[in-house]
């Protein structure tokens, strides 16, 4: 029996993976409260360390699984 090919429906995943929020701390905060910086680095998405003008100095993470993509 011949059957016509049907158009495959596009499926949307039931649970959409949410991007972790961009967490920032200043370099002054990093130096003042290292434990806070470490706690932030342990969270999903890590922490962006910026200077007083908001310019990125570095991104730090203590990964739970694979290292996430950095969003500059």
């Amino acid at each position, binding site marked *: 029996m011949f059957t016509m090919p049907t158009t495959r429906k596009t499926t949307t995943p039931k649970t959409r993976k949410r991007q972790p929020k961009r967490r920032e701390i200043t370099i002054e905060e990093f130096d003042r409260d290292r434990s806070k910086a470490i706690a932030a680095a342990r969270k999903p998405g890590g922490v962006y360390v910026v200077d007083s003008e908001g310019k990125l100095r570095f*991104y730090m993470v*203590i990964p739970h699984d694979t290292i996430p993509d950095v969003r500059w």
Partner: protein
Amino acid sequence: MTGCQFAKLIAQKRERIVAAAFPGLTSEIDVSRLFETGTDTHLPVIALFTGIRTEAALIEQLSILARGSRWRITREHPAGLITDDAMIGVEWQIGNGCVSSVMGFAPFATMPVTRRAPYVCLAAWPGGHDNPHWTHYERDIVHFLDTDLTALQLTIPKYRSLTKLSRSTTEQLLTELGDDARYYRRVAFRLQGSVAESLRDVFVSR
């Protein structure tokens, strides 16, 4: 491509490293901040320099590090190795009386195959002599061999078999090009010989 079985096991554990990405040439203070965080958390550190694409940029970064009192860049001459390449060592003063011998990775053809990576990286154990299985350590210097492996819960036979496998796998990866792991005990980067001249003022003697 690593032959180190311990690195593979560490990579499987949660919260096993502190990693940081630096977008461009970076002050020695910022790299020290990362290393200090490794000391505080008792974890190995990896610094990725995503903006460094050439040997010249790496040399510039090493020169910046050398300006800091906690960093030493050395010219190494491994016994038995005859080469025109520049063998460069990197050390970081931990603060516990020891220096950490830093391992380097880079996407350059001069680097040994086990130290090639998509980005220039510095990796180190910024703690003490915390590996109870490793007793032949040097008093004032720590290497990755000194890493605290408690989380891996290794028995002595397991540790020995992993060490043996690490050695043989690394040897296999390197010997094809006539290379040898013992040349890199204190070498972070192997670069073209011509770069040594530009680092002449940066090198410190042992």
